[in-house]
Structure formats: C-alpha cells, structure tokens
C-alpha cells in the first residue's frame, strides 16, 4: 500500500460510517424478510403450524384455518405445504434440533419412530374428550379401525385422515383391441401381459428408482407379496398373554383364517416379538417362501418396461398416459389425476381406462391367500410434543379439522382446485365425487398387509441396503439365492440398530421407556 493511501479523516471509513449504517440497516432488514423469515408478529398470542406434504388439501386447510381463526381470534394458524422430496429429512432436522421450533402438526407417515423417542404427543386421552364442534367424543368422529391400525405400543399418536390404496389401471382400448378382460388371477394377468407385449405395447409401466423401492410401486409389490407369503407367521409375533401390550379383547381367541383379508386387521402385534423372530431366525429372508415370492416378482418384472430401474414415477406414468404401456400399478389418487390429465389431452389422444384389483395368485407350492392392500391412511396427522397448553390448543384444532363439515370442505376445495383426492375421507359424513366413488370399488374390501418386509421395520439403513440388492436382482445381475442371502444378512445386522433406536429391552412383557 502506498504511504498516502491510508484512509484519512473525512473519508468513507472515518466520517461516513454512521450515515452508511443508517442507510444500510433497512436494507438488511428487508433482505432478511425476503429470505423467507416470518413476517412481523400478527399480534395474536397463540400459533399453530401445520407442515404437510398433502398439497391436495392446501386450499381446504387454508379455508379451515381461516374458519378456526374466526372462531378463535387469539389464534393464528399457519399452513405450510412442503415438497414430498426431502420432507422426511426436513422433519428430522426440525424436530431433532428443537421441538419448540418444529411444526405442531405434520404427516406422521414420513418420520416413523418419533413417538418411540418421546417426541410426539400421546393423543389417547384426548380421544375421550368431547369434540366441542360436534358435541360427540372425538373418537366418534374418527374411523375406529384405522385408529387401531396405527396405534403405536397401544397408544394413539396418529390421526388418519383419508384412505389410500393401490390397484392396476389399464387401457380399456388396448384390452378391447386384443379381446382381453380384466384378469381374475395373477397367472392370467401375466399371460395377458405376454399378448400385450407381442402386440407392441409395454405390458406394465413401473418406476424403479430408489424412491419406488422404498415408498412407491416396487415397494408396494414386495409388500403385498411378502404379506401374502407370511400370513402363517402372524401368530408368531402377535401380542400374547403376559405381554405388556396384550389386550384380551382383541387378541384372545385369535384363530388364523387366511381366507378372510380382515382376520388380523386389529390384531395387536408385539414389535419386540417381531424383532426377536428375525434375530432368532424364526423368520428368514432366505427361506423357501421368500424364494418363491421373489422368483414370482422377478417373473412379473420381466414384463415391465426396459430400463425400469432408471425410470421415475412421472416417467412411468407418462408411458401409460401416452398409450405406450397398457397397465400400471398405481395408487387411488391417480383416479382424479388421470381424469384431469385426460381432459388436458387432445381429443384423439384420449383413451378409455379402468381399474382392477391386484388379482390373486393361484399357482404356488404354498397355500397363498389373495393379495391384500398395502395402503392405509394417506394423510396422517401427528402432534409434536411441546407444552401442555400448546398440546391442548393443537388437539382442539385437530378436533375442528376432523368434523364432517371439515372433511367435506377438504374434498370440495380439492375438487375445486383440480387437485387429486387420495380416497374416501376417514371421517364419517364426508361424500366423495361420483366418479371417484365408482372407480374406488377396485381398491376396497381387500384387507391390509400385516407382516411385510422391504428392510426391517422401515429402518432406513436396512431399506436402503435391501434396495441395493433388490435392484440388482430384478435387473438379473444376481440370483435369487444371492439376493436373499444378502437380504438375510442385512436384516440380521439391522436388528441391534432397531433395538437401540426403539429402546427395546427385547422382553415383550415389559413396556420400554420411550424418549431416552
């Protein structure tokens, strides 16, 4: 630096700084606001934040939030719609950092294990309270079977809002051209797939990226297959007399009846018995049952489009929409999505489509019951534990949003905004649009999976490792035996991790302390 280049008094850094600061300060303030900071306080004392990936209910939730604010002027309700991609990571970070800054209500199915760690509110006592908006007990406004299905360790920490299920969508025009009818059996479906392929169409459009193996189509396929092949194993892991979660009203006198899809619907399963069965190799991934199930899935995969492992959900859907693929396995929200997309197509590009249930397997060396549903609740609310006053407030808001009026509002606003609807609302009194109700028949009365595997208890590391092997298997790079051997090892090494995460003492008779 030159000797005379030092700033002198009266130059920028000596005479002007205070003025500069005054000028720049508002700029920093505005910059802060533009980066998504919360706006200045609205003056309301209480706040409820709902952070959801259920973007289809955005309009309905905003309307309900407004109605609630009118009823309770001291409360501000914020509705944040989050992208599905990364939502789980975002939630883990939010809740892991501090529950005070986390949202009050979120989609529970994206962050399993939080209740076991003591981060969520046990809503069981609130179910007995009177819902001030219906003057009935809260549980009377909810679906009892689904509440039971989503209990965690006997507690209700999840409020299911709507129902979602999978079925096969098919191009009726292609079927008519080839003289085909919706298949009655799994084997018939595959023989039809062969004819469809020979006619120049892709039989099934299936996404095969990692997301699909975890929470999409491929994951569903493995789930309904393993559920069917493991129906006999349910008694092994059900809660038994002496177990801390044993409820004689539900489990006493249970007799396995594989002909009834709902036979074990409300049966309480003891998670420690399940982990123990894996640890002690009573349930083995390299067993003959798994071998047959995986072989049949690989046979099914031979009718998927070439390169399915590099296909994401949107790309697979486009194959069906553009009439290149004749069938796809999809979830019930696709009904309204497909209707919307068809109406956006040129008239000559539209086609007739229908839906059929996943057909039952009839050829097996085992007695395999019909495939059951892998769906369940679509949107499921859980409440983050903060303080008693906040919990009471949030429970009150949940009661408000689970009335017949609220459910109808969610449906109507979704239809108005041309958003998809997952399926029937699990709140008695809400009516579905007629088309939706008609197509949804294929999705109903199939029961729910009870014991299915793609990883261990949704522990993410085991899911990921299973995905690595399963992708290679379905691509024909490794044999069934090699895949299942790796899967068995993956499950064994996942056991101690799950035990640690869930604080299990591996004694089914003692209730384990959560939230260590």
């Amino acid at each position: 630096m030159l000797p005379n280049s030092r700033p002198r008094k009266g130059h920028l850094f000596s005479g002007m700084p205070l003025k500069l600061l005054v000028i720049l300060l508002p700029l920093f303030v505005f910059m802060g606001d533009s980066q998504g900071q919360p706006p200045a306080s609205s003056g309301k004392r209480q706040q409820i934040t709902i952070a959801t990936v259920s973007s289809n209910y955005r309009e309905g939730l905003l309307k309900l939030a407004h109605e609630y604010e009118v009823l309770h002027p001291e409360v501000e309700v914020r509705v944040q719609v989050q992208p599905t991609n990364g939502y789980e990571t975002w939630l883990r970070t939010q809740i892991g950092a501090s529950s005070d800054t986390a949202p009050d209500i979120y989609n529970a199915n994206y962050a399993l294990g939080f209740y076991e760690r003591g981060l969520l509110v046990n809503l069981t006592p609130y179910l007995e309270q009177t819902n001030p908006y219906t003057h009935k007990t809260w549980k009377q406004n909810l679906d009892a079977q689904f509440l039971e299905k989503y209990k965690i360790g006997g507690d209700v920490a999840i409020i299911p809002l709507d129902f979602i299920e999978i079925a096969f969508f098919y191009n009726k025009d292609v079927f008519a051209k080839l003289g085909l009818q919706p298949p009655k059996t799994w084997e018939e479906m595959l023989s039809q797939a062969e004819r469809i392929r020979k006619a120049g169409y892709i039989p099934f459009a299936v996404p095969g990226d990692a997301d699909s193996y975890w929470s999409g189509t491929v994951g569903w396929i493995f789930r309904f297959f393993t559920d069917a092949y493991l129906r006999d194993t349910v008694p092994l892991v059900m809660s038994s007399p002496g177990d801390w979660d044993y409820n004689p009203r539900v489990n006493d006198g249970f007799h396995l009846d594989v002909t009834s899809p709902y036979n074990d619907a409300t049966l309480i399963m003891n998670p420690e018995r399940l982990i123990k069965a894996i640890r002690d190799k009573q349930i083995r991934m390299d067993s003959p049952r798994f071998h047959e199930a995986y072989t049949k899935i690989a046979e099914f995969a031979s009718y998927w489009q070439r390169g399915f492992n590099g296909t994401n959900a949107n790309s697979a859907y486009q194959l069906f929409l553009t009439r290149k693929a004749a069938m796809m396995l999809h979830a019930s929200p696709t009904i309204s999505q497909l209707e919307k997309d068809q109406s956006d197509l040129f008239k000559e590009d539209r086609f007739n489509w229908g839906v059929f249930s996943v057909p039952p397997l009839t050829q097996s060396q085992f007695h395999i019951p019909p495939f059951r549903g892998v769906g369940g609740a679509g949107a499921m609310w859980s409440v983050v534990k903060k303080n008693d006053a906040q919990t009471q407030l949030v429970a009150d808001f949940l009661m408000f949003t689970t009335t017949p009026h609220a459910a109808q509002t969610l449906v109507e606003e979704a239809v108005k905004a041309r958003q998809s609807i997952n399926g029937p609302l699990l709140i008695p009194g809400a009516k579905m649009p007629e088309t939706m109700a008609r197509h949804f028949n294929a999705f109903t009365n199939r029961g729910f999976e009870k014991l299915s595997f793609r990883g261990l208890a949704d522990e993410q590391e085991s899911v990921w490792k299973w995905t690595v092997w399963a992708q290679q298997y379905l691509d024909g790079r490794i044999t069934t035996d090699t895949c299942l051997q790796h899967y068995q090892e993956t499950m064994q090494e996942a056991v101690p991790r799950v035990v640690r995460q869930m604080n299990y003492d591996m004694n089914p008779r003692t209730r384990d302390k959560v939230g260590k």
Partner: protein
Amino acid sequence: MTLRALWRSRYSYLFLLPTFLFLGLFNYIPAFSGLYHAFTEWETSSTAHLNGLENFRRMAQDEFLRLSLANQFWLLLASLLKTLIVPLMVAEMLFHLRSSRLQQILRTLFLTPMIVPGMVGVLLWGFIYDPNIGLLNNALTAVGLGSWNRAWLGDWHTALPAVIGIGFPWAGGLALLLYLAGLMALPVDLLAASSVDGATFWQRFWAIDIPLLRGQMKTIAVLTIIGTLQDFGSLLVLTGGGPGLATHVPALHMYFQAFRFGHYGYASAIGFVLFLVTLTFTIANMRFVTANEEIA
C-alpha cells in the same frame, strides 16, 4: 498493531465483524464440530459420547463405502480431464481468433451458462437421459438408432458414464475463464519472439502456453478435486447412488449416514477422512506443480 491504530480503524473492523462472526458460526464451528464428532457415537435424538476410533474401524469394514471408492476414482479422473483439457482447447481457439469481435461474442456465449444454477443443469440432464420421454433416446430413435436406446441412468453399464457426461461438451465455466485470463496475460515479447523464430502452433502450445498456464492448471485441479470429492447433490437428485451402487460415492454415503440413517458420528468420521483425502490431493498437486516450475 497498537491499540490506538486499532481504535482509529474501529469502523472498518466494525463492518468486518459480522462477516467474521457468521464465517465462524456457519463455516468454522460446524467444521470443527465435525472433526470432534468423528470420534463420537452420535445418533438421532441422543447425545454424543466419545468412542475413540470406533467409527474409523467401522469405515474399514463398510462394504458399501469400499464399493463407492471405485466410482469416486473414475468420477475424479473424468472431472480432472474434463476441466483441465477441454476448456484449455476452447480457450486456445478463442485466443487465436483474429476477429476480436467474434472472440468477444463467443466468449460471452461460452460463459453465459455460468449464471444458470448448477442444479438446474443437472435436472435438465435428468430429462435428457430419461429412458422413456428423454431427449437422448428420442433423438437416437429419430435418426434411426433406436436400438441404442438405454435407461442411461438406470443401466449398470451406462449410469456412471452418463453421470460423467453431464454438462457435455464441458467447455464453459470457471476453467475457461481462468485459461483465457492466463493466455491474455502471456508476455507479448515472448509470443513475438516465438513467432519470429517460426514456431508452429503446437510448438508454442507445448513450449510456452502449457508451462506458463501451470498456475491456472494448479488452481483448476485443486478446485476440481475439492468439488468432485465433496459433490453428491447431483447424484442424489439424479440417481440416488443407484442403480444398486453404480453411482454411489463416499460423499453420498456420508449424507445417507447422517440425514437418512441418523448416524451423525459415523457420518462425521467419513467427512473427516474425505477432508484428509482432499487435503492430501491438494498438497500433492501444489507440490508437484511447484517442483515442475522450479525445474522449468
């Protein structure tokens, strides 16, 4: 520095203070925290406790991490070739254009894509590679090469090459800017002397340009090594490391361990080793190039 001098420049330091505060808060504290947590067992919702070298022992036995090293090697090698060679070729061509107007236009065209966020480019390449509705397969079909169609990112044989192919023809960016600046700064008398001596383009390229651009090459190599070893965002978005482990790399493994599986201590250990590897490569590169300059 005396206290009086410090006081005299107090406003300068006052303005600098927020920068250092935030730098410390968001850059240095997390980095040092990571170094510390590499020696701890730290899982979601549990406090960290020291476990010595356990995380490093686990790394040595981690089969998936080991398999990801080969991918990392090929990606690093390809990245170095892409950033060291192609932009240099383009810079030479631009530098030797006779029309300064054309040179200016082409330079602008090559550098303008830099303003597009990198992730947008990655997503665009995702569309290009889409096996069903992607540009590449449809273009191949249109020219009668439909049999070459692939699930570029979903096929074990093509996934890693497809990831390497992102950004083709890899001509623009910071590397081009640095090379151009280096070429423009070459001593005019040296160039004139080579011209008088009748040096051909290639003689000049090898005897003058390459030795004098070694500083730029060193910078580009260091930035590429750091960028490639740290980058997992594009792989996370495009392939998730798949199919199988075909595009899995250590940085992605670190991300999965931390934010998907909740093994923060183990992820910190992977980060620590990545830091050491990056540092080693960088130091080796700096020393190697310096030694060559001294020889020259």
